[in-house]
């Protein structure tokens, strides 16, 4: 009997692995998600059957409560997942991740209390620490992305001191619980310090770096879940938690690579904080520089009479929900014989790959989307580059200005097109708070307005021709 259950857990683990494999290839991604969900069904049924048929510590308690808790969580999770707007995906992933981390921390706490011993095992403490950090960190990430807390990076020397003190306190508590035995008060202190640590870890990080942080916290939760697997002696939890921990770490590193930053740089450099001074100076300089403005009608005439157009969409487009209008404009221009392509920066949107999701939602055909390496050689030959709500990803300072905080980040070479039209609300600096030289180039014209309004007016103007 025991063998049969272990075999079923193994089957679940294999389904997770196959699911992950499929998830990382575009052709099978959706099937991958379904496969992993199937693995989850197998694991759940196995666990429940094991509890009923093969009770080790007597018959299970609280079956009604278990059913109720699963029902509440399932309905809340599924309804939120159905309703969330695609633009809000980063905070959705953050909050779901926080739930997982919180759950792992609660399980570790419950197991510690259950044992009622003065000392705690390494696995119990690890689950508690990492789970709590992941929970509070994710909640802060959610609050920042949702705009409940300032998205700006906060960086004060005082905070580094507090972080260091918390870390020393954490080590002290771990030593106490592991060796001399501190009992429940020490464990609660460990919980509290870990929660505070998670808040302070994410608080200083600017909005632009948040996807990397969420991905890192995602792998943290995976490891916390693996730790609860050790605590509860359950291989399914160990395998799935570890899989997520490892693949999440790799994904985090891939994202850092796409932004040309190191993980340490993202976590400790306080990216936005060092640049706010630069941005303020940039804004002052902007007043002195020359900005050319273009009217909707002039822009429409230009767009209708060219051969090739490259659209560079950014998060500003998505916030304004302008992707449908953009597709309408692209379709109209295509009918007039314009060759339309979209240039997608790896970190366009607020998560890597986010822009592809948003444009897919607006039914933009896949074969018009090109990534950085594919499209960059085409800019020189393009008549117009239309930049909609994108900023840092077309900032030439990344290529030339060594003093710029984004120096070295791969960018889209929109400035090499014959003409550049930038649709932008105002001259304010973008997500990362850095001024953009592109706006002052002689070939650049600014079309001021919110993305949706401006693009809709362009559509009308082109239709009227």
């Amino acid at each position, binding site marked *: 009997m025991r063998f049969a259950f272990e075999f079923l857990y193994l089957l679940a683990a294999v389904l997770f692995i196959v699911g*992950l494999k499929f998830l990382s290839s575009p052709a099978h991604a959706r099937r991958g*998600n379904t496969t992993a969900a199937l693995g989850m069904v197998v694991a759940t049924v196995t666990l429940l059957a094991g509890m009923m048929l093969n009770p080790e510590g007597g018959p299970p308690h609280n079956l009604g409560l278990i059913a109720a808790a699963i029902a509440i*969580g399932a309905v809340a999770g599924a309804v939120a997942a159905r309703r969330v707007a695609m633009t809000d995906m980063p905070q959705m992933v953050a909050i779901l991740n926080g739930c997982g981390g919180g759950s792992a921390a609660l399980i570790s706490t419950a*197991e510690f*209390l259950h044992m009622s011993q003065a000392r705690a095992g390494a696995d119990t403490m690890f689950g508690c620490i990492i789970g709590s950090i992941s929970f509070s960190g994710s909640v802060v990430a959610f609050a920042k992305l949702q705009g409940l807390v300032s998205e700006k990076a906060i960086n004060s020397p005082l905070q580094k001191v507090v972080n260091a003190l918390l870390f020393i306190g954490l080590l002290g508590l771990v030593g106490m619980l592991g060796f001399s035995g501190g009992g429940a008060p020490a464990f609660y202190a460990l919980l509290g310090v870990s929660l505070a640590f998670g808040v302070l870890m994410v608080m200083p990080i600017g909005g632009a770096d948040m996807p990397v942080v969420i991905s890192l916290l995602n792998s943290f939760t995976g490891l916390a879940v693996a730790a609860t697997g050790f605590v509860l002696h359950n291989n*399914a939890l160990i395998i799935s938690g570890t899989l997520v921990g490892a693949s999440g770490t790799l994904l985090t590193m891939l994202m850092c690579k796409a932004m040309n930053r190191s993980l340490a740089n993202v976590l400790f450099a306080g990216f936005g904080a060092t640049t706010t001074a630069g941005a303020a100076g940039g804004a002052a300089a902007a007043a002195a520089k020359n900005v050319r403005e273009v009217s909707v009608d002039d822009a429409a005439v230009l767009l209708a009479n060219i051969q090739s157009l490259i659209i560079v969409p950014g998060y500003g487009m998505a916030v304004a929900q302008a992707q449908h209008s953009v597709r309408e404009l692209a379709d109209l221009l295509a009918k007039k014989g314009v060759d339309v392509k979209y240039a997608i920066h790896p970190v366009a949107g607020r998560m890597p790959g986010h822009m592809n999701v948003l444009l897919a939602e607006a039914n933009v055909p896949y074969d018009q989307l090109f990534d950085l390496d594919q499209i960059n050689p085409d800019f020189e030959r393009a008549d117009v580059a239309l930049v909609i709500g994108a900023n840092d990803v077309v900032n030439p300072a990344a290529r030339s200005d060594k003093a710029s905080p984004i120096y070295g980040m791969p960018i889209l070479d929109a400035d090499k097109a014959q003409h550049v039209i930038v649709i932008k609300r105002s001259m304010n600096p973008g997500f990362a708070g850095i001024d953009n030289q592109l706006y002052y180039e002689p070939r650049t014209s600014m079309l001021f307005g919110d993305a949706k309004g401006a693009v809709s007016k362009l559509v009308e103007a082109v239709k009227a021709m």
Partner: protein
Amino acid sequence: MAEIWVFALAVFVGFEVISKVPVVLHTPLMSGTNAIHGIVMLGGVLVLASAHGPALTTLGFLAVVLGAMNLFGGFVVTDRMLEMFKAKKPRPAAVKKP
């Protein structure tokens, strides 16, 4: 000891299995792996099933609720994203990047 083996091998598999992911899929992959650690719900079930007294019962109950939100929310939201990727007219070779 066997658990350490399981852990070590899972680390390798986790690294290997997603070694090459196109940027297009980073968001769904993050959300998909996020759903997989929703299995923590089962840990909550184990705790709740052996819980005595109000403190442990409350902790277990909350752990299952949070775990279930992670699990169901994660899979549903990932599916929603990937569904849109698929809804297009038959996609040409553009997607099958190496």
